[in-house]
């Protein structure tokens, strides 16, 4: 009997755990896909001007109206380098559909250039510094680590942020959805 009660309680606990799990899932999804609200405005990011590897200033708002993936990275960050081939593939696949990747490298221009060449990087990488990392903190990069990725929808709202590497299947799902949501 006691064993039965225990089992029952366990079941009930498991049920609650499952419910709590679903709630967490919903919460996580809400956090990640929080598409509404002015707090999701990518304006501070889009207002950024950073030099490219040739020293020429580039404004992020030149890609306004596109689905924009901004990836903070560095050559000294191995997990950053490991995920970038997936970004190259995605850029190639969706470039005709209004997708633009932009790297912000917390690094030296010659190192960025060297790695970009090795990878056949098909999107620009701008040169960031302290200011760029501080800005990423405001976007959710609490400990200012890399990689950190922000996906901006066509309306200039932050649709997704990712601390650490982006799962390639997840990336594909998000991009497919955001690209099909024409404004």
């Amino acid at each position, binding site marked *: 009997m006691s064993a039965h009660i225990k089992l029952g309680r366990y079941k009930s606990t498991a049920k609650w755990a499952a419910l709590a799990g679903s709630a967490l899932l919903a919460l996580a999804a809400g956090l*990640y896909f929080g598409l509404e609200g002015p707090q999701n405005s990518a304006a501070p990011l889009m207002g950024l001007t950073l030099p490219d590897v040739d020293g020429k200033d580039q404004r992020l708002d030149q890609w306004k109206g596109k689905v924009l993936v901004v990836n903070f990275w560095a050559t000294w*960050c191995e997990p950053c380098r490991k995920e970038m081939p997936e970004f190259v593939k995605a850029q190639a696949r969706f470039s005709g559909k209004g997708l633009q990747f932009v790297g912000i490298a917390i690094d030296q221009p010659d190192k960025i250039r060297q790695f970009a060449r090795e990878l056949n990087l098909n999107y620009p990488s701008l040169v960031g510094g302290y200011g760029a990392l501080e800005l990423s903190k405001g976007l959710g990069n609490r*400990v200012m680590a890399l990689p950190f990725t922000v996906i901006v929808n066509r309306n200039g709202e932050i649709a997704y942020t990712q601390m650490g590497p982006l*799962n390639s299947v997840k990336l594909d799902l998000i991009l497919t959805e955001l690209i099909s949501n024409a404004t």
Partner: protein
Amino acid sequence: MLCAGPLAVLAADVNLLPPEQAFRFSARALDARTLEARFAIADGYYLYRDKLKFAVTPEAAILGSPDLPAGKVKTDEFFGKVETYRGTLVVKLPVSGVAAGQTVVLAADSQGCADVGVCYPPTRQKLTLALPAPGSGPGTLVDATPPKKTWFK
């Protein structure tokens, strides 16, 4: 199944330590000519050997080459062979140009990563040590004062 990735990363993000906690820097003066720097590296984090740099002030103080232990060698696709440290790292640093009883500021630049797949920019941590008088034994272990970060230019 698709949820496993992002949820795992979400959890990782919640738990990610700031670099000064992931790589806790402390030091003591063993005698008037030798400093001992320590990094307490949290589980699941590692430091790069070739990114460790030390400096002392005042200007008259001169730091010799750090006695860095061998790290764990791994091959990095971009940088070639790199060595990493985990756990507790102890580094002896010869110091000259300052007398017993004087204080020095020891700065350590380090750079490391977490196994969950993120890396921290180079971080500078500092502390102040008093050099012990001859025969008085090692000084007490001093923790780093609030951190200052440095970035590549």
